C-alpha cells in the first residue's frame, strides 16, 4: 500500500538513470584494467621506495623497518643533490632552446609556398628518429676521431676540442643534441596555431600602421602563447627523460657533470641493484615533474582560460 503513496518518477528521469547505470557498467571493466595497469606499477614503486630492497637479497631486504630511510639518505647524498641541479640546468637550457628555435623557424616557414612546405617536412626528420639513433648521430659528430664536423673545422684552421670530454661544454652538448631532436615539435605546434590565426586583426593593425615587431608582440604572440606554454610543458616533462643521449654521449661524465637525476636512479637500480633506493629517486622525480607541471600550468595557459 505504501508504494501507492510514492509518486512515480517521470519516465525521462528513469531512462536517464538507467542510461547512466548502463554506461557505468559498460565502462567499469575498462576502467578497472586501466587503473590496474597505470596505478598498480606506480603503487609498487611507492611501496618499494619505503624498503631497502636490493636484488642481491630480495627476500631479506623487502621489509618496512625504516620506511623513510631511503628518503632520509637522499637528503644526505651529495651526488643525488648534484644530479637535481644538473637536471634543472639541462631542462632549462634544452626547453628554452627548443622553444626559441621552434618558434623562430615556425615564423619563418609560415606561408603557402611549396618550398616552405618542403622545408617544413625536412625539419621534422629529427623528431621521428628513434632516440638511440639520435644519440649515435651526435656521438659521431662529437667524437673528434671520426667526426666530419671536427675534421671540417680542423681543415679550415679552426680546430675545436671535444665538447663531450670538456666539463664546461658537456651539458651544453647534450642540450644541443636534445634541441636538434625536439625543436620540430614546437615548430609544428606553433605553425598549426599560426595557420589557424584569423587574418582580420593583422590586416586591421597593419592599416593602423603597426610595424612587424608590433604585429608580433601585440597580435601574433598572444595568439600562440598558450601553444608555446603547452610545448614548454611537454618538453619540460620530456627533458626529464633525456636518457639515451646521456647514456651514449657522456655516461653521466666527465665526472658527474651530465649525471641527471634519472640517470643516477638508473645507476642505483641497474648497476648496483639498489631497487628500494632507486624507487625513492623515481618518486622524487615524479613529485618534481608534477610540481613543475602545475607551476607551468599556473603561469601559462590558465591565464588564457580566465580571460
Amino acid at each position, binding site marked *: 500500500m505504501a508504494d501507492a503513496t510514492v509518486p512515480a518518477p517521470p519516465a525521462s528521469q528513469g531512462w536517464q538513470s538507467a542510461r547512466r547505470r548502463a554506461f557505468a557498467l559498460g565502462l567499469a571493466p575498462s576502467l578497472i584494467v586501466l587503473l590496474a595497469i597505470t596505478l598498480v606499477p606506480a603503487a609498487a614503486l611507492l611501496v618499494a621506495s619505503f624498503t631497502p630492497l636490493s636484488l642481491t637479497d630480495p627476500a631479506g631486504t623487502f621489509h618496512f623497518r625504516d620506511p623513510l630511510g631511503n628518503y632520509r639518505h637522499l637528503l644526505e647524498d651529495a651526488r643525488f643533490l648534484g644530479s637535481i641541479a644538473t637536471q634543472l640546468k639541462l631542462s632549462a637550457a634544452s626547453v628554452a632552446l627548443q622553444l626559441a628555435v621552434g618558434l623562430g623557424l615556425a615564423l619563418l616557414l609560415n606561408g603557402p609556398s611549396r618550398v616552405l612546405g618542403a622545408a617544413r617536412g625536412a625539419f621534422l626528420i629529427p623528431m621521428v628518429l628513434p632516440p638511440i639513433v639520435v644519440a649515435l648521430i651526435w656521438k659521431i659528430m662529437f667524437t673528434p676521431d671520426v667526426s666530419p664536423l671536427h675534421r671540417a673545422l680542423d681543415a679550415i684552421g679552426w680546430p675545436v676540442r671535444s665538447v663531450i670530454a670538456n666539463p664546461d661544454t658537456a651539458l651544453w652538448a647534450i642540450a644541443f643534441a636534445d634541441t636538434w631532436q625536439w625543436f620540430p615539435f614546437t615548430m609544428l605546434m606553433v605553425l598549426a596555431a599560426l595557420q589557424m590565426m584569423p587574418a582580420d586583426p593583422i590586416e586591421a593593425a597593419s592599416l593602423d600602421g603597426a610595424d612587424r615587431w608590433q604585429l608580433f608582440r601585440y597580435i601574433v604572440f598572444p595568439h600562440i602563447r598558450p601553444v608555446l606554454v603547452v610545448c614548454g610543458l611537454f618538453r619540460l616533462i620530456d627533458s626529464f627523460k633525456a636518457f639515451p643521449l646521456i647514456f651514449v654521449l657522456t655516461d653521466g661524465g666527465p665526472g658527474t657533470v651530465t649525471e641527471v637525476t634519472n640517470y643516477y636512479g638508473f645507476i642505483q637500480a641497474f*648497476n648496483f641493484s639498489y631497487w628500494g633506493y632507486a624507487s625513492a629517486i623515481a618518486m622524487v622525480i615524479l613529485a618534481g615533474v608534477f610540481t613543475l607541471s602545475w607551476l607551468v600550468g599556473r603561469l601559462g595557459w590558465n591565464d588564457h582560460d580566465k580571460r
Partner: protein
Amino acid sequence: MTQRRHLLQAATGIGASLLLPGLASAQTGGARRFQGVTLNVSTFSAAYPKLLQQWLPEFEAQTGARVNFDAPSFPVYNQRADLELSTKGAAYDVVNVTFIYSSRWINSGWLTPLDEFIANPQLTAADWDVNDFLSGARAPETGRDGKLYGIPWTAEALLSVSSRFDLVQQAGLEFPDTTDDLVKVLRAVNKKERVAGFVSDSHYGWTFVPYLHAFGGDVFRKAPDDLFPTLDTPEAIAAADYYAQLIREFGPDGAVTYQPDQVTQALKLGRVNFSDAGQLHLAQLGDAATSRTLKTVKFGFVPKGPAGRFPGTAVHGLGIPAGSRNKEAAWAFIQWALSRQTTRRAVAAGYGSPSRRSDIDSAEFRSRQRINGSDLAQLSLDTITQAERTGHMKYRTVSVYPQVDQQLNKAIALIATGQANARQAMQQAQAQSIAELRRAGQKI
C-alpha cells in the same frame, strides 16, 4: 626455413658426431637425447659466442635440443641477467657468468654448481678434462664453498702496448718497464708525428687499478674478507694523480671518453702510441689487413711501480642458473661449447683468448700470437699466472665492486678534466663508496 634448418642439422650432425664422439657417448640415451628440449642461452656479444652461434646446428643435430641464443651488448646483458638471476627464474638455461658479477651471482645462490655434472661419467665425456682450463681462470668462477659455477671461455690479461715503438727507438729508449720509465718515454714521444702519447679505456675501474696496486694502494683493505674501501690513502691518491696526469698530459682530444674499441682503433691507426688493454683487443693489432702499426707495434707487461707489478685479468664463463628447468641439457651445451674440439676449432678460426691450456700451448695459437716479435700468448699466460699467485684480482669479483668501480671511473675523470685534484677526487670516491657499501648492507 624450418626445412633448411633440419637439413643443416642432419648434415652437420654426421660431421659433429665424428668430431665430438666423447660428448655423444657420455650422454645416457645416446644421440638426440634432448629431443624436444628448448635451451635458452644468453651471453654478451663477443668473439667466442659469435662462433658458437655459427656452429649451433651441430649441437642441435647431435642432441636433438633446440637452442635460442641471445647475445646483447655487455651492459644490456649484465642488467638483464642480473635481474633474471635474482628472481631465480627459468628464462635462461645457460648464462655467461660475468667476471665483475661472479661473486655476487655465485655466492647469492643464483647459479648451479657444476662439480656433480663434471664428476658424473654419464653426463661428461672422459676426455673433456676440466683441469685443462687454466686454474687462474677457474678461480673467479669458484664459490666460497669451493664449487665451480662457470666454465671459462675467455681468460684475458691486461697488457701494455706501444703501437709506434719505432718512435721510442728513435728517441733511444726501451719499452717502459716501470711507471717512471713510462713517463720518461711519453715525454720523449708525445705528439711526435702527430701521435698522442697515451690513452686508455675510460673504464678506469679496470685500467687504473694495476697502477693503484703498483703504487702500493688497493681498492679494499683486504678483499674478499675486509671490504673497507681504501681509496683515500696516500698511495691511492698518488696513483690516481699519476694515472690521470698520463691521460691529461699525453692523451688525445676527448681522451676521457674513449671506449675499448676506440682505443684499439686509435692504436691500429697509429693515432695513439701507448695504452693498456686486454689481450683480445691488442691481438687485433696483428691483423695485416687492418692494422697500420703491425710493423711497429710492441707489447709488454703493465708497468711496475714502487710496490711491484700487478697486472689485471678478466675471466668469463658459462654457467647454469639455479632456476633452469633443463640443467642436464644445459650442461650438455656447456660441455659442447667448451669441448676440446670446439675450443680448438675456435682457435683455428682466429679466436684470441682461449682458456684451455692445451689451446694456449698449441703451435697454431702461439704462432699467431707472435706479433712483430712480441709473444702475446706468453705475456698473457704469465699475467694470469701472476694474478692467481698474488690474489690481487680478488677485489674485482667481490659483490660490491661494481659500486666502487664506478667511483673510480668518476674520480679519474674528475682529475683528468681538472674538476678536482687527486686528493679531493679520491676522498670523494672514498666517502661515496662507503655510503654505497652501507646501502648494500656491508658491515664496514
